[in-house]
């Protein structure tokens, strides 16, 4: 049984190596290798989850030297759930968008796409499992460059511009994060999360260095907020998600930005400590920006004529929900935020893949007027889009309903100014979500554009398989959320 402790490390190193190998393989072999890798990550994470649920958390020494001297990774229930979920979404996004890679990417460069995916997978796993802030930063770098490559590989003007915007904003975020980490090292002399927390506790007890400490918390939070597209820093998002290939958009929206938020939660609990973090008032900033993002993201989405960009702007609103949950500064709020990470990732990746399926039967266009009637021409994608839209709006039975339920109950826990604002804005935002998502559903089921109909059209087996799994997952999250919520609660308890 103890052999399971090796699994996270195996996955990370194998992902790095298969990325390197993929660079010299043919497109088909690289694809097969990547799918094997993601499946391996899926099963091993499930193993780690079972192990941590039975025997509790464990740390794993990377090398012959114990932690403050050598590197270390750590696995608890929450990490295992995250890794499991990330590999699952990665698998389904690749499966659903696999068909379109051939259309969107030049043929000799298709194997390089899988290089990016492999290295991204390794960085996601490392960000989830890391117990060391500098290791986290190294894999943030890999993650940033890989994500930029995923946008750029489509090689048209729009995606180049989008990748440039993404790189500028994301590198700014990385820079702030790095400055924060460096200042932090200067105060504590440690990079290992648990050691930092100990020294910060003694510093806080003696009341030393309060001003630099606030700046550090601010720098790290803003850096991560830029990278995960919190409201005023979301300028790169719409183009990046709107003009990349379907799998890339799904992966970027549901995995890359979420990994950073998870890193923030980890820093909140395991580096700075919840008490210091929640007392630092930065949670109020998160709350205000999150609430503003919920409204402005939806307003931008309503104005949009391009369906892909509309879905992208809806991401801004949903990221706002997550930050609002973190902004409550309570365990219940964080639980709701983590659950919303899951439900949003599952739904948004499905929406991007389904939207690509719909635009395929509409002459590869993505405007509302062209997409009219697409639900009849590609029924699988139409159903998936409808399920995703309902989930985003928060209709019962779907994943989005549960996360809104938990967010509301987290808001009602304490009676203060946050509660009033949160409840009102949640209601308004739900109506706004409904406004644009229901419009989109109505528009794809308006029987028009018969000239796009192709009698021989078949959505493809991989697309159907991916979509069906997505729909099943959405219902699972909506109907049987209790085990997941309990796992999140156990994981958060292990964190602190």
């Amino acid at each position, binding site marked *: 049984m103890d052999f399971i402790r090796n699994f996270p490390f195996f996955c990370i190193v194998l992902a790095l190596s298969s990325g390197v190998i993929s660079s010299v393989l043919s497109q088909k072999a690289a694809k097969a290798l990547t799918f094997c890798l993601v499946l391996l990550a899926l099963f091993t994470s499930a193993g780690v989850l079972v192990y941590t649920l039975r025997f509790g958390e464990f740390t794993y020494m990377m090398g012959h030297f114990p932690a*403050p001297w050598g590197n270390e990774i750590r696995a608890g229930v929450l990490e295992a759930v995250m890794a499991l979920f990330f590999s699952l979404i990665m698998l389904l996004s690749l499966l659903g968008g696999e068909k379109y890679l051939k259309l969107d990417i030049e043929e000799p460069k298709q194997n390089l796409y899988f290089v990016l995916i492999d290295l991204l997978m390794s960085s996601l796993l490392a960000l989830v499992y890391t117990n060391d802030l500098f290791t986290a930063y*190294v894999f943030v770098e890999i993650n940033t460059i890989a994500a930029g490559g995923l946008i750029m590989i489509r090689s048209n003007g729009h995606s180049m511009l989008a990748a440039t915007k993404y790189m500028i904003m994301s590198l700014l975020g990385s820079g702030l994060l790095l400055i924060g980490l460096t200042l932090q090292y200067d105060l504590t002399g440690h990079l290992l999360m648990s050691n930092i927390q100990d020294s910060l506790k003694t510093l806080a007890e003696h009341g030393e260095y309060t001003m630099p400490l606030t700046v550090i918390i601010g720098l790290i939070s803003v850096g991560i907020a830029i990278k995960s597209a919190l409201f005023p820093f979301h300028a790169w998002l719409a183009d990046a998600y709107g003009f990349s290939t379907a799998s890339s958009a799904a992966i970027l929206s549901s995995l890359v930005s979420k990994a950073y938020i998870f890193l923030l939660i980890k820093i909140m609990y395991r580096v700075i400590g919840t008490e210091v973090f929640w007392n630092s008032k930065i949670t109020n900033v998160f709350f205000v920006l999150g609430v503003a993002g919920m409204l402005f993201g939806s307003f931008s989405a309503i104005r949009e004529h391009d369906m892909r960009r509309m879905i992208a702007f809806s991401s801004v609103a949903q990221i706002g929900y997550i930050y609002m949950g973190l902004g409550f500064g309570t365990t219940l709020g964080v639980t709701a935020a983590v659950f919303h990470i899951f439900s949003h990732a599952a739904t948004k990746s499905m929406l991007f893949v389904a939207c690509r399926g719909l635009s395929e039967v509409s002459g590869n266009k993505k405007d509302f007027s062209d997409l009219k009637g697409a639900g009849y021409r590609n029924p699988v994608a139409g159903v998936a889009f409808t399920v995703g839209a309902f989930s985003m709006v928060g209709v019962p039975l779907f994943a989005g309903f549960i996360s809104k339920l938990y967010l509301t109950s987290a808001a009602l826990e304490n009676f203060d100014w946050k509660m009033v604002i949160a409840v009102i804005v949640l209601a308004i935002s739900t109506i706004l979500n409904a406004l644009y998502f229901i419009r989109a559903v109505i528009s794809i089921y308006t029987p028009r554009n018969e000239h796009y109909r192709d009698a021989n059209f078949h959505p493809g087996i991989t697309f159907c398989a991916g979509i069906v799994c997505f729909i099943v997952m959405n219902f699972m999250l909506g109907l049987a959320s209790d085990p997941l919520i309990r796992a999140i609660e156990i994981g958060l308890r292990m964190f602190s």
Partner: protein
Amino acid sequence: MKLRNDYEKTLWRRLVRFVDGITLQEIEEHAEELREELAEQQEESDQKAEAAFEAVPEPESREERRRQAEEAHAKEASAMLEKYKNWPKEHGIKIFGRLYALMSVVLCAIIIITLLATVSYLPEFGHETNPNNNEVVERYNADGLAETGATNAVAGMILDYRAFDTLGESHVLFIAAVCVMILLRLEYTKDGKPTDVLRSSEENDRLYEPKNDKILQLAAKVLVPVIILFGIYVILNGHLSPGGGFSGGAIIGAGLILYVNAFGFEKAGKIMNRKNYAVLSVVPLLFYAAAKGYSFFTGANHLESGIPKGTPGHILSAGLILPLNICVGLVVACTMYNFYTLFRKGGM
């Protein structure tokens, strides 16, 4: 342009007049001529305007007059609407741009001031009692040599104590190279022939880059072997003296770039072509991952790794550090050279 009234009386003007040999009278005469001309023109245009005024017939009735007034009013209104519509384009963006620039400067200033203020609160640099002078550094200094076998403590830290970070870091280099390849590499067709874009980029390269420059070639002949040898020395001595894979690889890469500049791609292609690049970047990284994977696995499971440490100070010592330095050096050298060729003509 409006001149000052006493322009001709200024010191400068007097000097100019003196140098040019013009008297004040001449200038005044010229001005008089100009003034007369202007008056004539004015008279002419006055006459024309009068003629035009007379040519317009007197409005027949009051209704006619009202209609005309209405038309004029409508024209004025539409002109105003036009002005209103164009305002954002003509002035709004300008104002917004200025505000934007101002705000960004203010924001930057605030951030700079905050960070500078923070620095002043930090512990003094290099002080003995600083928090970062703790048990971690102590063990690196005291036991580093015995535990890693490397006389160069930095090499011991990055390739043994914190090897996982360095493993990630070398893959950062790799993924950067992959991204540049996606962006800039020009492809051959399926049957191995160059595409039109590739051919034209090669022709351009021939046009813009110097060919067979004798001075450069002589210099390169002398320098390249020395540079590459020095790079190899820095890599191989990485565990003994300052240096290592990253710095030595960069030196070798610089040598290769000098070589290709002097002798052209055809000669350089004999050693560094796409196939060799793939081998030289993939094999070291795989060896790195495999070797470190083995060491992580044995370390975490408390097994003996069986890798001899050797005598510190000898060239064959410090366990895995020497082979890892060679791997990193190869990757860095190839990546640098690859970047150069990609930016110059889209691949080797």
